[in-house]
């Protein structure tokens, strides 16, 4: 693997390689360059996962034609696909190299997150919604109770925007979460459930289930479960598994006619 990266860098197939390296005792993201090929011997894998894809979009924003190699896990490939579809990255300029570790529910082994059984785990003492619940388990509650349980979770939010900031597929220049017409400003917790539902709706066809948002959430809100449900609906309606394919997402196609009827919003 390391030789391959060296070769890529030497031959100019890539300008920079995004991976991980231990610095001051911490496994941190690191950019390996061609000026210091020995540095690549210090590359580590199977450590904590950071949103390298998002970092790549930042590099591209500064230098559009930069060629980037990066270590990937299953979910990073899905993230890359989504970023290609939405024109944030050009597949021509990205060279993924498969590493190990995956935090998706598609795999049992979660190498890179606190979700793996037996590791440090949660400090949550009381659950509105259990972080580890599956969609089905979350739906056993009657509607009203379910709503209250979610509201219990949402009201812990400290509005850090960490869920958005860390998300590899959040790239909008203007974010609805900061739009005062959509979400009232000046209150903490932010307006619930609208704050969380706005984000959830925007994750339809975007969220690739990496779990970074939930890991970054200081309030331990089961965000991933929420977005999983949203994307289960996407799969059901459009037969599209987010990030699984490189062709267009149902959300990036401009349709010809409106097929859904407008519904008045029911009073709460």
């Amino acid at each position, binding site marked *: 693997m390391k030789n391959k990266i060296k070769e890529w860098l030497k031959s100019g197939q890539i300008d920079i390689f995004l991976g991980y390296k231990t610095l*001051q005792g911490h496994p*941190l993201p*690191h*950019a390996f360059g061609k000026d210091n090929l020995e540095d690549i011997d210090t590359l580590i894998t199977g450590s904590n996962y950071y949103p390298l894809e998002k*970092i790549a979009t*930042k590099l591209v924003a500064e230098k559009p034609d930069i060629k980037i190699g990066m270590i990937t896990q299953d979910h990073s490939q899905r993230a890359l696909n989504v970023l290609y579809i939405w024109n944030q990255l050009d597949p021509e300029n990205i060279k993924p190299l498969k590493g190990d570790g995956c935090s998706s529910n598609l795999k049992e082994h979660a190498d890179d997150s*606190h979700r793996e059984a037996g590791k440090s785990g949660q400090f949550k003492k009381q659950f509105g919604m259990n972080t580890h619940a599956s969609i089905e388990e979350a739906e056993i509650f009657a509607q009203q109770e379910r709503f209250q349980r979610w509201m219990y979770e949402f009201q812990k939010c400290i509005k850090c*925007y*960490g869920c958005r900031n860390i998300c590899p597929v959040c790239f909008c220049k203007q974010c609805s979460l900061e739009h005062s017409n959509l979400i009232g400003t000046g209150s903490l917790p932010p307006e619930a459930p609208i704050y969380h539902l706005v984000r959830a709706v925007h994750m339809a066809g975007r969220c690739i289930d990496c779990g970074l948002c939930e890991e970054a959430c200081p309030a331990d809100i089961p965000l991933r479960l929420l977005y999983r449900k949203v994307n289960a609906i996407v799969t059901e309606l459009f037969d599209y598994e987010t990030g699984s394919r490189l062709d267009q997402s149902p959300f990036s196609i401009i349709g010809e006619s409106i097929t859904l009827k407008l519904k008045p919003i029911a009073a709460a």
Partner: protein
Amino acid sequence: MECKFVPSVCSYCGTGCGVIFQVLDGKLVGTLPMKTHPVNEGKLCIKGWNLHEYVNSFLRLKYPLVKTFGRFIKVRWDEALQITADRFKEIIETHGPDSVGVLVSAKITNEENYLAQKFTRAVIGTNNVDHCARL
């Protein structure tokens, strides 16, 4: 293009969350929470997430300013220190040491806080020292 990730500690409050700064060509462009840091375990509050913004803010004070006749004048550090010392001396001589109070901060280190209280008690000669975290 030079791209670096620099481990650091959030300077906004006394919690001391671990952060990673993303530096592009010498400019700070992003902050990430450090997942392996024992204090914050991959989480940050809104202040920590935006550390790179204040470092780059055009409102940031980069050198000492002395207010003279209602205007802020840029001075050298040694001048600023001398002016401050002279003014303090004057105030203490006229109104006594208890006319001075010192407010220390959660944004500085434990050692700096210690030094500040020592300075207040031993040099200025007052017990008027408090901390911004005592809300």
